[in-house]
């Protein structure tokens, strides 16, 4: 039996989305910028995808900008916004456990003379709205915050944050990295004061190399890629029509079944957490209830190195990640686990399980069985 439990790293592309990609790659391959009918055909796919996506967020179609994925969306939002608005101020607020595609653009801006304040998070990963309120200043131009933390699944209060930001400094923009939450949460950015929202296609059963950035029509951003002026000048380059069309299909599928999907994921998660914590030396990080993301469980195993557990599970065709897979090709200490002050001994002993709508209870039980046998065995042999 195979159990792919690394869906926060990437998901399988849905059949329907893949078929769409194939169709647009091989049949309706026109360049939306071409004047002839073949070009219009291509443009129509992009327009359809844009309409579907705009509907899921209840925003205007021309506020959706297609990109190559989450990393590009985050870069464009943060660097693009800062560059266009630096005359209004150079202060930015964020959290200490953002994904590197937010963390590194922020570090880049700090080198360029911007000042970044980082909120504190508690042991569960929660922030204090009061702290955010206190940090917002006259010259704060941007708050960037993830909706769901990719490693421990904690949900940040973007609604409250949006409210506080707009009350304290209406000129300050609010960017949300929704890469782990889009498709699993109903998000209405306009109503809750979110001005920019990043989404990646391959985390929601869409094709890799797809994604978008929602940008509120009132917000000014400087493009990072210059060229033919596609995507209303914000993101030049021939649109990746197959990926965009596939992303549209995947987004529709996710939001057509949002409630039942969430319910299914929570069932898996509740059962997994209940059983896995019965194993000696195993603990779960982040909130345990339904206030967390339904698809992510961070598990620490005393005296077992994460990489070893990962490979032992891999041997049984169970796939998980150590820390955060997106950046875990080189072993480094997770910023998230440090931010929540996880016990020093567990930093290198934490793996992430992440589910998708296709994950079954049988797969969860299979993984649990494997853990029950492997963990005591691995705990016998530890490094001294």
């Amino acid at each position, binding site marked *: 039996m195979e159990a792919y439990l690394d869906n926060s790293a990437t998901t399988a592309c849905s059949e329907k989305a893949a078929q769409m990609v194939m169709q647009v790659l091989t049949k309706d391959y026109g360049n939306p910028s071409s004047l002839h009918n073949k070009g219009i055909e291509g443009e129509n796919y992009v327009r359809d995808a844009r309409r579907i996506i705009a509907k899921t967020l209840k925003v205007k179609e021309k506020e959706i900008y297609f990109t190559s994925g989450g990393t590009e969306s985050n870069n464009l939002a943060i660097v693009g916004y800062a560059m266009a608005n630096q005359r209004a101020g150079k202060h930015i607020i964020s959290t200490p456990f953002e994904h590197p595609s937010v963390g590194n653009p922020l570090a880049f801006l700090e080198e360029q003379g911007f000042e970044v304040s980082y909120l504190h998070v508690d042991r569960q990963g929660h922030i204090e709205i009061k702290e955010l309120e206190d940090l917002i200043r006259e010259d704060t131009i941007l708050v960037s915050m993830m909706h769901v933390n990719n490693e421990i699944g904690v949900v940040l209060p973007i609604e409250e944050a949006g409210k506080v930001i707009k009350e304290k400094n209406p000129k300050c923009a609010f960017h949300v990295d929704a890469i782990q939450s889009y498709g699993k949460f109903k998000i209405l950015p306009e109503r809750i004061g979110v001005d920019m929202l990043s989404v990646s296609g391959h985390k929601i059963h869409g094709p890799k190399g797809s994604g978008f950035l929602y940008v509120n029509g009132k917000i000014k951003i400087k493009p990072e890629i210059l060229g033919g002026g596609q995507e209303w000048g914000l993101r030049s380059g021939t649109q990746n029509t197959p990926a965009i069309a596939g992303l549209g299909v995947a987004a529709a599928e996710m939001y057509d079944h949002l409630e039942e999907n969430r319910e299914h994921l929570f069932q898996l998660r509740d059962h997994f957490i209940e059983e896995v914590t019965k194993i000696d030396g195993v603990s779960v990080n982040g909130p345990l209830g339904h206030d967390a993301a339904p698809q992510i469980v961070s598990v620490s195993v005393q005296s077992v190195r994460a990489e070893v557990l990962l490979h*032992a599970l891999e041997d049984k065709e169970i796939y998980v990640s150590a820390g955060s897979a997106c950046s875990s090709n080189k072993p480094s200490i997770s910023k998230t686990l440090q931010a929540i002050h996880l016990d020093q001994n567990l930093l290198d002993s934490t793996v992430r399980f992440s589910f998708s709508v296709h994950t079954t209870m049988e797969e969860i039980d299979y993984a649990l069985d494997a853990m029950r046998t492997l963990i005591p065995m691995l705990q016998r042999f530890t490094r001294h």
Partner: protein
Amino acid sequence: MYRAFLIKYGEIAIKGKNRHLFEDALVRQIRYALNPLEGKFEVIKQQGRIFVEAKNEDFDYEETVAALQTVFGIVGICPAVLVEDQGFDQLAEDIIHYLDETYADKHMTFKVEARRARKNYPKTSPEINMDLGERILNAFPDMSVDVHHPDVTLYVEIREQINFYSEIIPGPGGMPVGTNGRAMLLLSGGIDSPVAGYMIAKRGVAIDATYFHAPPYTSERAKQKVVDLARIISKYTGPIRLHIVNFTDCQLNIYEKCPHEELTIIMRRYMMEIAEHFANENGDLGLITGESIGQVASQTMHSLMATNEVCNLPVYRPLIGFDKQEIITVSEKIGAYETSILPFEDCCTIFVAKHPVTKPRLQNIHNSEKKLVGNMEELVKTAIETTEVILVEPEE
């Protein structure tokens, strides 16, 4: 411009009656190195020289030189221009054109050294030297003749065709692989062992390799890295039979029963034993390791003696007197370094003790190993039986 390469080989020329064996091996290795390349080549052995001739225009000069530089036994590679005999005037013109293209700055001394192998050529060798020299001096007034210490020597060989060359690109030296038996390299994912394999292969030895894999403690990527390293050195050594031993159970057994400070030494003794088993199976005449005195706890004189004790075959340690930086320099030269430093854990470090013994006493090691009696034989046997063997060759 170049269509041929004259191959210079030093050391093998003095091997007396065995000389043809060495030359045949060199020809074979040159063919092996050129095989994956674009274009067709003919490798000709004639009158104590080896000549590589491109049969058509579509070969890549840089790529060909790089391939020849991986062939042990080659001391120098001379890119030569090959022309048909169309009379002396045409030859002189071709040579002047060649010199003009090759040397931007003409302020230099030169001499011509002609060899007339085809005796019906109308000029004798000294006549060719003189007449060509004159034409060159007329064409390039900045050049002058110095027959004793010239900056450039232009060699002209008159055969059925005529070839001339003036540059010698250094080859790797050594002796052609296959002229000196085979040996078994203990290959880890580190910097040292690939270099050790390279150095022994340079003396004409063909290489087999053994790698110890410890899943789930070492990853599939670590194994892939070792295959990649074997592939890199196979450019020099020829095909490598890589033995991938699953060593986990052996290692865990040692871990459970022996003192942790001695873990690495005892583990290495078993590694040697297993590698020697495969060496014997393949008819290899020795083991090769990348050890260097004092580099780590398991490579002190005491530790080396302890690991050496279990081997019956000679153990070759070509890096024994090298400092790390010297090893890295070779590693970079042979193109292995970038791969060697990829950060995947290997089986030697996973359970390493904080303070491993640096002066193990054989008596203690023997006592510790007695605790393994009973099931270790079985585990070693299983490890040997389940070993995966893959033939690693350079990428085409």
